[in-house]
């Protein structure tokens, strides 16, 4: 007969493999969007925002910092529950959601500041699409973290049973990494 521990290990294996497959597909999705962006940019001699000054980088730079910080916090949340610290887990998950919300607000601000519209040549569309799909993923990540927070409040997790926190963290790292690549592609390169 299968023991409870074996059953839990099996379910954890399924969750981790499943999420990895999802992230692989998501990575190709964003990779394709970025390739489309490069394809359009390279086929156009005059690409707006090609030489942005350092002053232009303040808002997106701050935003990038906030998202990186949130990734650090969610890794701490995971460590807290591995120690059995349920209070610490809840506090850190909330902080992640808060930082996510600040990031979304910052992205909105940035988009309005640039004054771009989806219909402004190909550039406006590609900027809008890249930032939009990434923002959607951050919001999805926030929903996932909120669900983990609610389960944490109900006492669902323990030092040995917190696979949902773990995979939420993986998703959050992924969303952060995607933004870093996008930031480099859109602003720096």
């Amino acid at each position, binding site marked *: 007969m299968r023991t409870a521990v074996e059953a839990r290990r*099996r379910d954890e*294996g*399924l969750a981790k*493999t*499943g999420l990895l*497959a*999802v992230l*692989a*597909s*998501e990575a*190709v*999705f964003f*990779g*394709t*969007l970025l390739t*489309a962006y490069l*394809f*359009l940019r390279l*086929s*156009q001699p005059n690409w707006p925002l090609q030489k942005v000054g350092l002053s232009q980088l303040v808002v997106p730079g701050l935003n990038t910092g906030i998202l990186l910080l949130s990734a650090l916090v969610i890794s701490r949340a995971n460590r807290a529950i591995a120690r059995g610290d349920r209070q610490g887990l809840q506090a850190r998950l909330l902080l992640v959601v808060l930082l996510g919300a600040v990031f979304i607000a910052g992205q909105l601000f940035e988009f309005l500041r640039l004054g771009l519209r*989806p*219909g402004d*040549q*190909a*550039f*406006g*569309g*590609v900027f*809008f*699409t890249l930032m939009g799909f990434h923002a959607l993923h951050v919001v999805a990540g926030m929903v996932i973290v909120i669900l983990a927070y609610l389960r944490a409040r109900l006492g669902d997790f323990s030092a040995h049973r917190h696979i949902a926190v773990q995979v939420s963290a993986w998703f959050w790292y992924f969303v952060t990494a995607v933004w870093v690549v996008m930031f480099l592609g859109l602003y720096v390169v």
Partner: protein
Amino acid sequence: MSWLMTVDHKRIGLLYLSTGFVFFLVGGLEAMLIRMQLAQPNGTVLNPDLYDQIFTMHGTTMIFLAVMPLGVGFANYMIPLLIGARDVAFPKLNALSYWVFVLGGILMYSSFPLGGAPSDGWFSYAPLTERAFSPGSGIDFWILGILLLGLSTTIGSINFIVTIIQLRAPGMTFDRMPIFVWAFLVTSLIAVFALPSLTVAVLLLLLDRQLGTHFYNVGAGGNALLWQNLFWFFGHPEVYILILPAMGIVSEVVPVFSRKPLFGYRVVAYSSVAIGLLGFMVWAHHMFTTGLPAASLAVFSADSFAIGVPTGVKIFSWLATMWRGKLRLSTPLLFAIGFIALFVIGGITGIMLAVIPIDWQVEDSYFVVGHLHYVLFGGSVFGLTAGLYYWFPKMTGRILSEALGKLHFGLMFIGMNLVFMPFIVLGLLGMPRRIYTYSPDQGWSSLNLLASVGAFLIAISFLVLLWNFIRTMRRPAQGLADPWDAFTLEWKTSSPPAPYNFKEIPTVGGRRPLWDEKHPEQADWRAGQ
């Protein structure tokens, strides 16, 4: 009601198979309309506008709503049984993936009554699909349908990947996995990595059409070739999504009906992986006529030749398996042999198309249409039909009539060649694809008539299959657990299997676990002694 709520992999498999078969018949009817229109010069069966809608929906239906779901149906039913598991990894997601597929199919077809079906061909080239040139809602239905079908396939593929990696019975190492499972693992990986490109392509088109972005609008900094690159980066791997499950079925059927283990098990397994990898490096061979730089032409031409190698390896492995085997020429083996013969023609015409000067000459002609139907009808559909006759006893406890099965095979094989061999010749004679009619002085009339006669033979062959099905299902189940004296675990349980599949999860000691159990004196592990 219990069928609507089911999360059992066998029932979902049957739902996929039956829905896919219904769409196959619809796509077949569309093909018949096309052949009626083209049977004679200056045909008047369809007006040009409707003709465009019908051939677009024929391609879209056969690829996304028929052949893909039929492969998924067999995978759903068989993979847990083949690897000795009780179900897939995520049964509820499995049901979700089926219902999203149904929704996508309904959405696609609701375009007909709601303002006209999409009419720009199954690959919907931009900028033709931009609002300025396709103002109707057909393309929007097509986009939304594709998005849902892509979502369904992605969910399903992730489920199969996790199932195959995590839920194999004790002793079922990768090196002992049935070839069909290998083939479907690669198929699922291809889907996960190729579909996002299609998703991006159609999302950008949707934004262009609905939000006024300019991704494919050359006048505003966009690029029309962006569509072709994105689409074919998905589109060519898609060919392998359509053919690999059929190759997997053939690799199961040929050994069982030759009474021999598969020749070169490992190379057959790894050749699927090689096909999967190479499949991602050949997309621009669909774009040889778009003015690519010479270096790109050379690379993509060479890659396209290279993909013939792992494919050829499989062909020779099947032939070597049959060589000196005790062949039983039952219907499943006939269809498998049909697959091999027809797929070779599809493959060789494919290699011809990889030669750039030939491609420049016959691009967008009936040569290409003939080639792709030898691959997808002669290949995929023959392979899937072999699977139907082979696994029907497992799924229903009844065996289909051999006499009617052979009649089905004969009609379909002759009909298929009567349709598509003339296509290849018509292409060489210069007949472009997608034209709604032609004039009598172009010299294409008799070959077109021949093709239309062949199409009727194919249609009749499927009526024979339907009659066979109805006749068999009206008889009581015979409960044959293992009518073919087969090799693999799905035949170890009752037919049809109980909801839990196996009373006890089997332990696997070789590549032909059931054969070893039934014939210990000839077990595979003795062969080395």
